[in-house]
């Protein structure tokens, strides 16, 4: 019986292509091409000399430096916080787990601007602001605000990626390690973390890309003030509003470049996994 079925399947594969197949493939091509050409245009609007001069302008250098610094700081703190969060969600059952899961899912659906507003209220004069200020910490309209905004934008994504990495690791590896006398933390340190290595790297890359591209929340919480809390997306925004196209496009190109690098290394590492 089984033998009879196989030729049938083969036949239908070599059959004339259906209109539906052609339609789906056609749509895939058209819109990917449109997307790609819109990215390409970014590169060809300006002359290389214009890009170079914009690139080495004082404002751009400042914004690049600040972007790199804040994104590195927020990526580091995001990873440090999302590893335990994701591990807890993946390995333990505790009251409130599903609540945490759905709250962490929220920011992916609701707009960054709203997130910025919420953070502004939280860290502003109403709630946490006065207490933090008493400790000498000021979040709103400062560089620290940039890091905080980036952190909350990227955190849910990082938790999600790392969570699925931990989920892919069979808990029996940990159990075997426990049976040899290793405690929970030692097992995590010697078995789980090394096995999650590539997933952690991938999520750091994605987190960094999210942080450097974060705009809405950053703008509202840190305020997009010139040469003070000015990161790359803010540079793009400010210069568009002044009509300064060279600066805007150049920061756009920079952001695109970073995103491409991130996606590229993400794919390589995810694809290279066992």
């Amino acid at each position, binding site marked *: 019986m089984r033998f009879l079925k196989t030729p049938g399947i083969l036949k239908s594969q070599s059959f004339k292509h259906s209109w539906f197949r052609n339609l789906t493939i056609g749509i895939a091509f058209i819109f990917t091409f449109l997307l790609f050409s819109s990215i390409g245009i970014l590169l060809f609007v300006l002359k290389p000399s214009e890009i170079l001069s914009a690139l080495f302008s004082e404002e751009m250098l400042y914004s690049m430096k600040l972007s790199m610094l804040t994104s590195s700081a927020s990526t580091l703190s995001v990873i440090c916080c999302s590893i335990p969060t994701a591990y807890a969600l993946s390995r333990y059952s505790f009251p409130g787990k599903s609540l945490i899961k759905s709250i962490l899912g929220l920011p992916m659906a609701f707009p960054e601007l709203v997130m910025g507003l919420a953070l502004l209220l939280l860290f502003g004069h109403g709630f946490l602001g006065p207490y933090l200020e008493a400790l000498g910490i000021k979040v709103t309209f400062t560089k620290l605000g940039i890091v905080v905004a980036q952190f909350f934008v990227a955190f849910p994504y990082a938790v999600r990626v790392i969570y699925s990495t931990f989920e892919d690791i*069979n808990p*029996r*590896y940990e*159990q*075997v*390690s*426990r*049976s*040899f*006398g*290793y*405690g929970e933390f030692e097992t995590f340190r*010697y*078995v789980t973390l*090394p*096995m999650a*290595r590539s997933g952690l790297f991938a999520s750091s890359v994605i987190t960094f890309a999210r942080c450097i591209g974060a705009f809405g929340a950053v703008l509202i919480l840190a305020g997009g003030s010139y040469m003070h809390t000015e990161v790359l997306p803010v540079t793009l925004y400010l210069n568009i509003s002044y009509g300064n196209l060279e600066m805007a496009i150049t920061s756009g190109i920079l952001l695109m470049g970073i995103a491409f690098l991130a996606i590229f290394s993400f794919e390589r590492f995810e694809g290279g996994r*066992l």
Partner: protein
Amino acid sequence: MSFLEVRDLCLDVGGFELSRIELKAEKGDYLTLIGPTGSGKSLFLETIIGFYRPEKGRIILEEKDITDLPPDKRQISIVYQDHMLFPHMDVFENIAYALRKKLRDKKQIEAEVKQIAGVLGIDELLHRKPATLSGGEKQRVALARSLIVRPKLLLLDEPFSALDARTREKLRDTLKKAISEYSTTVLHVTHDFEDVWALANRVVVIRKGEVMQAGDPESVFKRPSPDFVAEFLGTNVLKGKVKAFEGKLTVIEAEGLKIYSSDPAKPGEEVVVSIRPEEIILSRGTVESSARNTVKGKVLGIFKKEHLVVVEVKMGNAEIKAVITPTSCEMLGLEPGRETYAVFKASNARIIR
């Protein structure tokens, strides 16, 4: 008091359930737990080792109640079907990892690893990554890793089921050797009767989280409880004596039958031969074929098992079970009392002990 005592163990983890399991094992016992898939065997092992906490019941090892101890304080090792070797460590590291909590001295660790590698025949593999090993090799390494700590109890969770018959046989021998060398008590979960015959001195039959039967393999298989046979068909086991060595085949006289096996054995040796029911062909007359064994017998009974038919045939002094499809059963016109021939290859008559 026994070396290991499990009293009234109950646990329900959605889908799998253990209800009131009672079990005892003496030091040095090799105990097999046998039962169909989904009978809660693995869950039972993982409760013994401490990955699950029972809802009720006690586990007592060497007169100490270990029910509430964390797994790292129990000195119990486990080998899974899918070996669970750490992929980021090479073979040496994997084995040494187990020992690092017991021994600090690097030279000593190295010596111990070398020794067990010798016993299990994996000396050549020490610097390979687990991903580059074959199934049998991985399982040897997993065994080495579990045995090197000289656990009080070694748990084996279907360690051979992912391997082919030849590898399985070889590994059984190696396992026997290693266990006697590292003298440990073993709980071995399996659904393969050959494991029981080849390795165990005691067998416990589990079904749906309950102990159905327990005892030494002989008495359990000679007088199986009726439920157990209906649920779970094993292999045909024949006891006999090696008569001669013909060409490349061993000739065995077992329960009034002459059986050719391609497994080597010395003439005069007492052996146990296993023939799987699904590897037996039933025919009306004698047929010329490549199979070396053709045995005449009488149908004793026919019963249905899911979508297949199990035919019990009396041959010599033995009752042999064969599995065929309902269609072939009809075509052969099989019914109790009819004569039939059982045909099987010499390579399928395996000497298991």
